[in-house]
Structures are given as structure tokens and as C-alpha cells.
């Protein structure tokens, strides 16, 4: 079973990689690339938990077709384990003036159970300048889930930026192995104040972040002796190259 899975995943990735250069040639447009880390921070929790968290992405491609890597993770610095370690590889293409559609794969390899997912989603800019990233996932175990990321950049000055953000996760079916219950499984809200130190390349920030698990997901956490909610003070760097 595992070997079959690997072949499938490998084949999918290969397809993705092959498609991009071909598409690039057809369009004959310029290729662009970039890297950014929206979050790269140290978190100190209300019960002295210490975490290292990141949320970064990089892309390469033309206006019509891009290959994008998105990576998220959370490292428990006390226990020295990766609570979360996600990597996504998607192909992205415009579907409207302000939105792109994307599709690809996601691989979770935290300390614990690994999971593969297929993913489709959209990302873009909604009215009133709200940045949206919405995805649907289907795991190798056949479980479906969804995630919605919203962010807004408020200019206190032209260099000091206040960014509220919210992330919502929902699962359509239970996946006990990775401790996810049906319904809204978790949410995270954050408020970060950053300062553009070097152009838009390096912007240090401080902020707060509140995480919470809901419903069955919260119960699973409690059973394991873990907290189902936590508040953190965060400090980190926004990067863009």
C-alpha cells in the first residue's frame, strides 16, 4: 500500500514539475520569483510555553502560471519536537482580477503521524483590502478538511503596520490519528505590529496570538493532557526577498 501511495504522489509531483516549464514556454512571458515569510517568530505562552513558528512561501512562474511552495510550522522549543510541520506545493493561476486558483499537494510531517493531502483553493484580495487564502484538503485517509486565512494590513504610518489575522480550520470527518474532530477544529487569531526596517524586506514585529481548539478536537487534546487553548506574546521578523 505504501509503495503504491509513494508512486502516486511521486507521479503527481512529476506531472506538476513537467507542466510548469511547458506552460512557461507557451506563454513566452517573463518569469518572476519571490520568497516571503509572513511569520517567523518566537512565541512565549501564558503558561510559559516556548514556540518557534513560521509561515512562509515562495513562488516561481509567469503571470499565467506559477509554482508556489507554502510552508507552515510550529516547533515546541521545550520538548524539542515539531508540533506542526506542513509543506504545500501548488500550481497557481489567475481566475479573476483579484483571485487565483491553486491546486496541488500538502505533506504534513510533524513529530508523530505523517499525512498527505491533495488540495485545491483560492487566494487573493477581497474588497476592503482583506487578504484571503482558502483551501480544501483531502487526506490520504479520505478525510476532508478546510482552512480559511484572512489578513488585513492597517497602516498606522507608512512604515508601522498593524496586522490582524484569523485562521480557521474545519474538518468534515474525524481523523483520530492526528487528533482532529469534526466541525470547526481550531482557530487562531493574531494581532501583529510591524515596522518596515529595510524596504519591505525585513520588518520586525511584536504581537499577540490566541489559539484554540474546539469540540472533539479540544477533547482529544484534553485526553492527551494538553491544553486546548493558549495565548502567546510573539516577536519575529516579516521577510520578503
Amino acid at each position, binding site marked *: 500500500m505504501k509503495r503504491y501511495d509513494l508512486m502516486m504522489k511521486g507521479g503527481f509531483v512529476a506531472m506538476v514539475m513537467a507542466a510548469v516549464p511547458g506552460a512557461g514556454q507557451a*506563454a*513566452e*512571458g*517573463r518569469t*518572476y*520569483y*519571490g520568497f*516571503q515569510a509572513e511569520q517567523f517568530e518566537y512565541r512565549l505562552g501564558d503558561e510559559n510555553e516556548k514556540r518557534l513558528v513560521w509561515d512562509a512561501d515562495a513562488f516561481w512562474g509567469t*503571470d499565467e502560471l506559477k509554482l508556489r511552495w507554502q510552508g507552515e510550522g510550529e516547533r515546541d522549543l521545550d520538548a524539542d519536537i515539531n508540533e506542526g510541520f506542513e509543506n504545500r506545493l501548488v500550481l497557481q493561476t*489567475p481566475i*479573476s*482580477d*483579484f483571485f487565483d486558483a491553486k491546486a496541488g499537494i500538502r505533506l504534513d510531517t510533524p513529530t508523530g503521524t505523517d499525512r498527505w493531502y491533495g488540495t485545491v483553493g483560492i487566494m487573493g*484580495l477581497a*474588497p*476592503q*483590502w482583506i487578504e484571503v487564502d482558502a483551501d480544501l484538503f483531502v487526506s490520504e485517509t479520505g478525510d476532508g478538511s478546510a482552512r480559511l486565512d484572512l489578513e488585513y494590513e*492597517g*497602516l*498606522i*504610518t*507608512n*512604515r508601522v503596520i498593524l496586522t490582524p489575522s484569523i485562521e480557521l480550520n474545519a474538518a468534515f470527518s474525524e481523523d483520530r490519528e492526528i487528533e482532529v474532530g469534526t466541525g470547526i477544529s481550531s482557530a487562531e487569531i493574531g494581532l501583529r505590529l510591524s515596522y518596515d526596517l529595510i*524596504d*519591505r524586506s525585513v520588518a520586525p514585529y511584536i504581537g499577540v496570538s490566541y489559539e484554540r481548539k474546539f469540540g472533539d478536537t479540544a477533547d482529544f487534546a484534553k485526553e492527551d493532557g494538553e491544553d486546548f487553548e493558549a495565548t502567546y506574546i510573539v516577536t519575529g521578523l516579516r521577510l*520578503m526577498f
Partner: protein
Amino acid sequence: MKQRIVLRALLGALGTVMLSATSFAATYDLTVDYVEIDTGTMKTGGIGYNGSSPGPTLRFKEGEDVVINVTNNLDEATSTHWHGLILPYQMDGVPGISFPGIEPGETFTYRIPVSQSGTYWFHSHSGFQEPDGAYGSIIIEPQKREPFKFDREYVVVLKDKHPHSGERILRNLKMMPDYYNRNQRSLGDFIMDVRKNGLGATLSERADWGAMRMMPTDIEDVQGFVGLINGMSPEQNWTGLFHPEERVRLRFINASAMTYFDVRIPGLEMTVVQADGNNVQPVKVDEFRIAVAETYDVIVQPKDDKAYAIMAESMGRSGYGFGTLAPHEGMRAEMPELRKEAPLLTMADMGMNHGDMGHGDMGKGDMAGMDHGAAPSDNPAMGNAAMDHGSGGSMPGMDHSGMAGMDHSNMTAMDHSKMAGMDHSNMAGMDHSAMAMGNRADPFYAAGSGLTPKAANGGKFLSYADLKAQKPLYADRPATREIELRLTGNMERYSWSINGVKYEDAEPIRLKYGERVRFKFVNETMMSHPMHLHGMWSILDTGQGKWNPVKHTININPGTTVYSETEVDEPGQWAFHCHLSYHMATGMFRKVVVEGGPAVATLKNGN
């Protein structure tokens, strides 16, 4: 003995015949090099000609055949385009259209029969070499005496040199379109607006812009540059000397990548005598806005024994160029008060663009009725097309702060044209004492536009409507057909196009040799675009009929429609594009193919 005399006579005759047959051919050598650009406050690597940026000033003579050898000392291909020059298309210097380009180490020989006079410039047409510093000026001396007198002259070339390379700037703009905009509205502006207009009005105004996902501060895409005059920063203070009472000719060239400059010399009136190399009927102004790639020649006559400041503030007020006109060496003019407050676009600048910025497909045929630009006047006696009889003065800016949720979908009936239906047959009896001179709304800006320029000293600001050809280059005749070019783009994606289609996806524009084509530029974006047609003149329709000015670069402001006509009299193929470097690079570009006309000899490298 007799034979020798006859032979000598024959040789002499032959020599004379040969000399008169060849016209004077001057040869110039240019090298394209990597250079260091040091503006005092900023040191950056760049590209220049003959070891420096800006490159040299080339002087040609009208009527001569010029030979220019361009040697490429870079690691990448280069090209040299002679902006505004009429020449065989293979000499126009656009890779992929005129020729394949000049490879590293290669030398390309340009041969140009010079058939015009005036101020022009040259620059690379490869990659982002021009924003990186590859530009220089051209002065072509006329055969006949020019219709104005001057005692000395200076080239004044303006540039917006940025510490980042052009390649890097575009990559950043693609990641974040407002990467270089530090003039955005912040909390402080919000609070000030609330104090002025109330919370409700301010919230709804912000919501209007937010609904469109557009910013009224979106005037200068690339801020953070150092304004240069002849390659020198304000600190370095380029200085031109004069003797009081002399007439000085200043040849202004805007060689910027992205920036429009508002040029003034406090204390001196400027008489505009040339635009884009062609003589215009002289116009006295206090200030003028020079779009990217345009040139304006002005005559000033400093009378006092003091230093005058040449001020070039960028249109979005994020930077400026500064230089001095002085009677003695070592002087520095007093810096006039800078106008730091950046203009804000208004809903009027939105014009035809109502949220569906997309790839320009408005799909609303009823938009055709909207004409914000200067429609051609039927009454030649109108002269200056900018007469506003309504308020007797400049049109007060429209206050949109209270305009909640304006529905732009039904703008069919709105006609912003100032020219239509105006009856001037009854001009007698009009009391003009109240009509302040120089205070009329500029018809080349949308009515109520936030970009409408005002002279710093309250005086006269040059408008396209003031430009009249001193001597028309072509007989005035009706156009044989009209081609509409919608200027389109998507700021969020930083993707710019014409008719919603990028260059790489577009069919060339095909013109017939001998026709007179009328281009209708409809600006569906919120930015000003300087459109440049290579190889053939653009006769800008300012409503003056046969006196319409002849230009090579035409600026179209947001929400306006501008017309220009071209006599298609140069065979071959030509580039036609927005001269804002990063708009051109992302797709606001077309190839123009001229079908028919005399067979053009294959001119290879120098042969």
C-alpha cells in the same frame, strides 16, 4: 604633355563630382559599459555610455548622414534607440522589431540620414538598461535659422535614479504592487479626514476606494529615487552659467524610467519654443509638467545678477531634481519651498474604470459615449481649447467624500467633454475682466482630476491645449481610419496591457503605407501613460486643426480619451508602447507593421 594636362583635368573633374555626390557623414563611437553612479547620497552600479551615465550629448546636423558605432561591453545584449528620430526601421534599435540586438563584444553600426532638427535623446531598449542609466541626449542643429533667439544653451536631462536595479524593482512590484509607495493613507490621514468631514463621510469614502481595491495615492509606482539633473543630485547641484540679460535656451529632456516632473524656475518665466523636437508657437509659462520621454525647449532671460533654481518636483511629490542657473561659478540657488503634499486621485480619475479593472474587457458598449478628453474643435477661432465659461475660472475639485456607494455602472449619459455643443457665435458683449488668465481647467485632465497641475506661484501652467505647431509638418487632411487603443492594466497583479491584451499575446497593429490613421487612446486605468510611437510622428489633436502640435510621445491622463493622428509614411515595423519602463515590460506594448510602401533595402550591420 597634353595628355598629362587632360588627365589631370579629368581627375580633377571626377574628384569634384565625387565630393558633391557624397553628403557630409559624421562618425560617432559609443561604448555601452557598466558604470558606477554616485549621487552623493547614493552609490549604485548602473549602465552608461562611454563610461558614464548619462551618456554624452551627440550633436548632429540636419541633412547629414550620421554613422554611429555602438560597441557592447556588457555581459548581456544591448541596443540603442534614437528617441524621436525619423530613420530606416532597421536603425531604430528595438530588439525583435528592428534588429536582433547587439551581443556582448559586438559593434553595430547605425547609419542615420538626419532629416530633422531639435532636441532628442537616446537610450537602450534592452532589459532595464535604461532605468539603470543607459541614456544620453541628442542635439540636431537646423539648416535654417530657428524662429527664436538665444545666446547660450544647455541640455537639462532629468532622471529618476533608484538604488535598486530595474530588474529588482519589477520583481518587487510583482510581489507587492505598492512595494515602493510610502505615500499611502495611514491612520493619521484618517483622523484628519474625520476631523474635516466627519466619521460617516470618511468611512464611506474609504469604503468606496476599498470596494474597488484601489488607492487614491496610486500616482507614483516607484518612489525612493534620487532626482537627477544631468546626472547630478540636488546636493551635487548641476549649474549652468549665464550673463544677465542673455537669452538662455534650456533643452529639457525627461529620461526617467517612471517619473513625471513639474519643472519651474522661480523668478523666471519660461517661453516654450519646442516640444518633442518640433517648434511650437511660443508660449509663456511659469511651470510645465514633462512626461516620461518628452522634451521641451524653453527660452529664459535671467536679468538679475543672482542664482536661479531649476526645480523639478515629481508629479507625486516623492522626489525632486534641483539645479542652478548662476552668473558666476560656485553659486547655489536658494532651494524654494518644496510642495511636499502629494496629490490624491479622485473619483474623476476613475473615469471608465469601475472596479472591473481586469484585462480591460469592460463589455459595456455604452461606455463609448464618454469622452473626457479634448474633442476636436470645429471652430478654428477657438484657439485655446481650454476655455471654461462655467465657473469663470478653474473647475473646483469635486468633493466625493460624501459620495457613498457611487454606482458607476450607469455612466452612459455622462458627457465630460468641454467642447461639445459650445456655441461661440455670440462672443460679443462678454465681459472678460473677470476671466483670470491662466486659470482655466486643463481639458487633458478629467474634470475634477486630482492630478490637475497648478503652478507653484499661482501663474500659468502649460497644458497640451497651449501647444500649437509653429509650422505644420503635414497638410491637414481627414484621417482615413480610426484605431482605438484602450490603455488597460491590473495594478494588483502589476500587469499592464493594451485592449486587455499583453504584448506577447497580441497581434501586431497593421497600418497601410500612405494612410492617415487616427489613434483613439482611452485610458481605463488610474495612471498617466506616455505613449510613444517609434519612427513616425504623432499629431496630437488639441483642437487646433492644422496647428495641432507634432510630437513623438503623448501623455494620456487617467479617465481621459486623447486622439492623435499619424501619417503612415515610413515603411517597416515599429514599436509602440507606454514609456513607463515597468508598464512596457509587463505588456503595454505593440508592434506596428506598415504594409506597402517602397521596398526597404535589407540593411545589415552597417551595410
